[in-house]
């Protein structure tokens, strides 16, 4: 049971811990970001209901961009587990 035979197991252990913590943090960031986007959009619509179409379009655009970054982080976590 020397360090040489334990090395792959330690690497896998480290990869699992890192990937799961990373995924949790990524989801945390995405949740906060999307919450702020939604609340800003809702406030804008409540102030001026005629502009609700434009506000909705912009909200969806910003939401996709923020979500994209979160999903990229999740793919990196999957990569860490698999490799």
């Amino acid at each position, binding site marked *: 049971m020397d360090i040489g035979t334990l090395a792959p197991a330690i690497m896998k252990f480290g990869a699992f811990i890192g990937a799961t913590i990373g995924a949790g943090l990524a989801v945390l960031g995405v949740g906060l970001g999307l919450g702020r986007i939604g609340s800003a959009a809702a406030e804008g619509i409540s102030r001026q209901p005629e502009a609700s179409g434009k506000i909705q379009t912009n909200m969806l655009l910003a939401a*996709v961009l923020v979500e*994209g*970054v979160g*999903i*990229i982080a999740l*793919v990196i976590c*999957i990569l860490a587990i698999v490799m």
Partner: protein
Amino acid sequence: MPALAEAGPPHEFSLSKALFAEITDSIDHPFAKLPLFSIGRTSIAFSVTKHFILMTAVGLLVLASMFYLAHKLKDPFRTPTRMQSLFESLLQYMREQVYEPVLGPEGRRFHLLCFTLFLFILYGNLLGMIPPFAPIKPPGENEAVWLGGAVTGNLATTLALGLITFIVFNASGMRAKGAFGYWRKLAPEGTPGWMLPFTLLLEFVGILSKTLALIMRLFANMIGGHVAMLLILLLIVKFQSIAIGPIAVVVDLAIMALELFVAVLQAYIFSFLSALFIGIAQRKH
């Protein structure tokens, strides 16, 4: 069926192997290898793999839908059919609401590229929603490859699409502002001379990272959706119990509905961001 008759000992079911076989391309076991040319000892060949076949189908669908629209538009005074008005309203919406505001009047020649990207990614994503339907055995292999999965869930495909956008927006910027003027004008007006190299470096890294984000966003969205859908269904096979069946299918239906929405949205976002980058690159302020 001869394939079942000559099966050896039953294979151990491995969740990760089944998942990977569904999602990745079968590039090690192609259906056919069409040799192109050889330099010295290496030879370059077209390998006809699963994603190659699917990409050809997507390309043919894009061509077919646009030829259909053009054919119907030859006589513009007849009552439009439903397919025709679908494509017409889609094209008109993308042109007026999405491409015109960002590309401007001098960017009219880029509408075609951006709409082609949109249709290709849209059809690729939607074709990936069809569950794998047909097993075909590559010659010389034991395992059959199921035709299914998203073409845009392949990093090579999205890399190619992102490279097209990158080349087009840099080339159009260099054509509009001069070969060196484009790179110099990346820094805003009024930066002091000593800060110029840093600002230019930062802007160049910004261009690279925006393109990389474009590539990875499409890839990650498609892969994430398919992995989630397949994992839940493969759990049924792994646990070998019939109680999981209905729950898994219902949960999978919900995820599939979300994935349909994400498929259309990601195509829209990719083409909109491409148009945005091209518009920024060639805007003369």
